[in-house]
């Protein structure tokens, strides 16, 4: 999970993810087109994103296609956000039970 937060803590890498979100499955060349950066710099960012499992790559002939992999981000959401919702729901349910049993 450290790798995911580290990877996300950079505007260029977030931009790369945005570009894949808009158009999934792009080559390095296509991803470079809209960035004022060298191929080497973009490659470095993509390697970090792949290590964090935020980007998955698929070989198609001689091409390497990059895909946004949202699974680790979902795991982060599940770890915190959903848990908080659950405890809120539990509290509501306890409150309801308490109020409804009050007039017995």
């Amino acid at each position: 999970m450290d790798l995911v937060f580290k990877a996300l803590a950079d505007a260029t890498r977030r931009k790369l993810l945005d570009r894949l979100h808009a158009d999934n499955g792009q080559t390095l060349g296509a991803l470079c087109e809209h960035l004022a950066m060298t191929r080497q710099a973009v490659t470095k960012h993509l390697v970090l994103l792949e290590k964090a499992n935020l980007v998955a790559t698929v070989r198609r002939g001689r091409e390497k296609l990059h895909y946004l992999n949202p699974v680790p981000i979902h795991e982060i959401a599940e770890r915190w956000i959903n848990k908080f919702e659950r405890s809120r729901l539990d509290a509501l349910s306890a409150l309801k039970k308490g109020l409804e049993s009050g007039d017995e």
Partner: protein
Amino acid sequence: MNKPSYVYVTYIRATAEKVWSAITDRDITQHYWAHWNVSDWTVGAKWDHQRCDGSNVVDITGIVVESVRPRRLVISWADPKEAARPEKVSRVTFEIVPHADDVTRLTVTHDELEAGSGMEKGITQGWPIVLASLKSWLETGKPVPFGATCSN
């Protein structure tokens, strides 16, 4: 052939055999997917993704295209109401590869989707949840809750 539409990857602390079973064994899928995946998983066999809430509704159906236990499973994927229309039938590939020690890499590739369809929207919301739930179930014995549960 078009490029794959969506690729999802998760690393799971479990053997490839356990990951395969978690996808193909209806008694396991019910715990983390709120559905039974029902088939004998031989090539050409039908498979159904069936609700286990007592209604037995089949939400997804298809044919087993490739089946190499425990490494690779390719299935067609369609809403039963649309399964006769080729443009509505998409394809899902599960690749299960031992990664390191007791960790297995599961890749789910979903392609041949109709662009802009309700199915496309559904699977992009669904796969991250299903994979997080599958991982959680295999590693901790607890699924990620996502609404429907099984009645039994």
